[in-house]
């Protein structure tokens, strides 16, 4: 029920605050989504969509930072394997 999927804003359709909508792309599939809760979104931004409504923006910097940390950990483990071998 609480599933929410990240998608990229590709085109604004309606700027009205209550009826704000945009076309959002999810891995190639495009849907019309309400942006009433993320009115500051621009084309190219990623938003998290649940039940046809974007509930928040995806912070790309935070995502990149966390991925870098995970990759560090991965490299570390790689080193550990080398040593054990």
């Amino acid at each position: 029920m609480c599933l929410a999927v990240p998608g990229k804003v590709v085109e604004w359709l309606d700027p009205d605050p209550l009826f704000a909508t945009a076309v959002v792309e999810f891995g190639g599939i495009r849907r019309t989504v309400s942006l009433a809760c993320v009115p500051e979104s621009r084309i190219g931004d990623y938003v998290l969509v649940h039940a046809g409504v974007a509930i928040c923006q995806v912070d790309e910097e935070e995502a990149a930072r966390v991925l870098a940390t995970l990759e560090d950990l991965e490299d570390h483990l790689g080193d550990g394997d080398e040593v054990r071998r």
Partner: protein
Amino acid sequence: MKYVDEFRDAAKCRPLIEKIQQTVTTPRTIMEVCGGQTHGLLAHGIDEALRDCVRLLHGPGCPVCVTPAQIIDHAIQIAAQPDVIITSFGDMLRVPGNGESLLECRAAGGDVRMVYSPLDAVRLAQQEPDRQVVFLAVGFETTLPATALAVRQASQLMLTNFSLLVSHVRVQPAMELIMQEPGCLVEGFLAAGHVCAVSGYQSYRPFVERYRVPVVVTGFEPADLLTGILECVELIERQTPDVVNRYERSVRESGNSAAMALVREVYEECDQEWRGIGTIAQGGYQLREAYRDLNASLRFPIQDLSQQFFDVAASPCRAGDVLTGRIRPSECEHFGTTCTPHNPLGAPMVSTEGACAAYYRYAPPVSKTESPLP
């Protein structure tokens, strides 16, 4: 898909698993609250991978499972009236009330339709001005902005043929209830990431102060789940209960203020009946008085349902024990034998997010006979 695939990458998960194994000094018990996370943990075999060091208890976070049977009965009663269309999320249509489910009601001729978004139900009401469209609104904080928006849109459009049958639930009061259980085993919580994306996580600070257990805001992909679990066991081991956000890309401390403003405009907190658990103080939301015209329970008052009531005590289903983490689904004596997705005895086996359905679908046969929790 961007922001999904990278966090599903097995190469990123392995070191996390190893680090969790190194961190724990004794097996730790953690509860994930959200049904979506329960499914993620089982689908990717995380519970199995951590079997020796982390015991994952599954919480009450399947909104479909905790929606009271009476609400479903009420929706079915409304569907029986002429010129009414009942709409809801697909999962909600499959769960039986005290008698049948909304899907069975549709098979018997009721106009019951699955929608992807409550906003689709608003559009349907615009297209069908001569019929009443009712949306059965269930879900946690994640879903509240969508249904609140539907209410605001319908009211702005002055639609007189749209209303909401509301059965929304709040996560935190259920977590309090679990902590207050005598003999509660939970040493830390994974907080539902998408709930927090909407409502933030400040409100967990008094909770952590009070119960001295860490709460880690956690996402849904395997690397997210493992990162959340790692943070949680570190906090447990250090005995420093705290609220930590490990779903940084989607969650800000105060949540989404535009979404919360919308929610507060439309809803207020109320005591709420949770199926299998009972009434939880401040455990739900109801429409504010200003939106009473859109309240389906007032527009279509409930008729006497008494003959339809099952004797709840006589029901063999142990949903209440499963939803509060007292037992794992596989410890229910009906699991996989007299209770299966094709022939379910309770909501947690019907809903695709129910813990029993997750165990049935993903757990290897050996887990079905595993030893009970101490």
